[in-house]
């Protein structure tokens, strides 16, 4: 049950309709966009529900139980409620910046999915610069947070936006270097090539001792910080900042930030699964099931972090990134380079 065959069949149906090639490509891309959007909307709604369930069970509660079986309709009900809310813009806000901030956050979160391989042959576009593109395009998230912080004209929002920007910029460096460690071995930035270089289970980068696991742990820590989740959730520390950068947002604009956050969490996990856990490779089951399983497993780990660790202080946060993660990731990169040079992994 490979999904790629179905999409190939649909594409050939479109080609056989006799339209010019340019129109076929445009229609195919628009359709791919809509499919991706629908898929990610469902994923985000599911993750919100799952996060509530996981947190509840970690704290020995049940979480949402009343709307549908074990509360599975809860997030749908919440989304409908948010859609009906009045769109409130504070009178002192910078209106255009206030409006565009959630839009940019939302679009930046979705743009990464152009080159994430969901399965065998299941990728919107296998770009040459794959992973570099994803890292580059997701930096727009920082801009959107800063815009939200400035546009709201509220001291809590401003502080939250500043903190999150400082945090994302700091943790981006170790994250990039841990990704670079993998690229060193694949000799390609294309996501499909990265997956293909991990065909056997002992080739998965997480199992390539000793640099693989180190790079994976650095990636996971930096990814948690990039998505502003506990123990790195200072941008929205409730006790200090009420809600952080999105304090003035309500209704659909708040929902856009919220969905973008969960889509970002899924992105970080999907990249982690692709780079370190062999992507869609796996025996017996169809490739897309393997991909989803690995990604959701990483999502679960991120949730587990969130509900078990206390929050760091601002100075601890920065020190941890610059004085610990960065040197370790550099040392790891040099180690991986030496191993590559000495042909330690010839398989």
């Amino acid at each position, binding site marked *: 049950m490979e999904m790629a065959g179905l999409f190939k069949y649909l594409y050939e149906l479109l080609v056989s309709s006799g339209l010019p090639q*340019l129109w076929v490509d445009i229609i195919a891309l628009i359709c791919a966009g809509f499919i991706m959007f629908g898929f990610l909307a469902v994923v985000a709604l599911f993750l919100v529900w799952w996060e509530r369930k996981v947190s509840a069970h970690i704290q020995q509660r049940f979480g949402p139980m009343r709307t549908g079986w074990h509360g599975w309709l809860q997030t749908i009900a919440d989304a409908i409620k948010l859609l009906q809310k009045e769109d409130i813009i504070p009178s002192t806000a*910078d209106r*255009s*910046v206030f409006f565009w901030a959630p839009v940019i956050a939302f679009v930046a979160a979705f743009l990464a999915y152009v080159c994430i391989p969901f399965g065998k042959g299941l990728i919107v576009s296998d*770009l*040459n*610069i794959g992973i*570099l*593109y994803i*890292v*580059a*395009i997701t*930096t*727009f998230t*920082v*801009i959107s947070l*800063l*815009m939200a*912080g*400035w546009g709201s004209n509220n001291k809590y929002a*401003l502080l939250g*936006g*500043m903190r999150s*920007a*400082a945090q994302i*910029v700091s943790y*981006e460096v170790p994250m990039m270097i841990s990704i670079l460690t993998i690229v060193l071995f694949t000799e*390609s*930035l294309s996501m499909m090539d990265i997956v293909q270089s991990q065909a056997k289970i002992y080739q998965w980068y997480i199992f390539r001792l000793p640099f693989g696991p180190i790079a994976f742990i650095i990636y996971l820590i930096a990814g948690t910080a990039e998505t502003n989740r506990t123990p790195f959730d200072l941008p929205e520390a409730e006790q200090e900042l009420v809600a952080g950068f999105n304090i003035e947002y309500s209704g659909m604009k708040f929902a856009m930030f919220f969905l973008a956050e969960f889509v970002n969490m899924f992105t970080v996990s999907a990249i982690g699964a692709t780079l370190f856990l062999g992507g869609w490779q796996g025996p017996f089951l169809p490739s897309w099931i393997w991909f989803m399983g690995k990604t959701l497993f990483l999502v679960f780990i991120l949730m587990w972090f969130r509900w078990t660790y206390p929050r760091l202080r601002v100075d601890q946060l920065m020190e941890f990134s610059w004085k610990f993660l960065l040197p370790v990731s550099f040392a790891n990169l040099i180690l991986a380079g030496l191993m590559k040079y000495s042909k330690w992994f010839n398989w």
Partner: protein
Amino acid sequence: MEAESSQLVFYLLSFIIVIAAICVVTLKNIFHSALFLILVLFGVAGIYILLNAEFLAAVQVLIYVGAVSVLIIFAIMLTSHLTSRKIKQSNEQVTLAVFICAGFLLASLASIANTVWRITDRPMPEHNTLTIGKLLMNDYVLPFEIVSVVLLAALIGAIVLARKEGT
């Protein structure tokens, strides 16, 4: 068809870039100027993609949008009362600026007119990231190292400046 559509995209991108660049220099609110600057830089990345230089485009977005613009916005946010009436929002050195900009424009026009643009019929290298990497590590290793040393010096300089006396 191919050439036509890429030309259309080029004019569209140029239009966006020029309009955004005009906004950068004419808007009164400096935060809005910074945001339009981001749009300009992003548009330039689009031009790079049009020229089949994807690696350069990604690096452009990563460095200019992800780092330089964030730094500019940080500086704006940390400056107190930036949009209040106490700070003059107009420039007093218009004449000087006009002269410098005109000189810069002339210099760039002259260099564009005097450069011999080499156009080859050879196909594009399939992996241009690989080619750039090889060139940086072989033919251009000295400039590459010098730039690295300059950046390192800037980094150390910033730390020395930011460090308080006696700590």
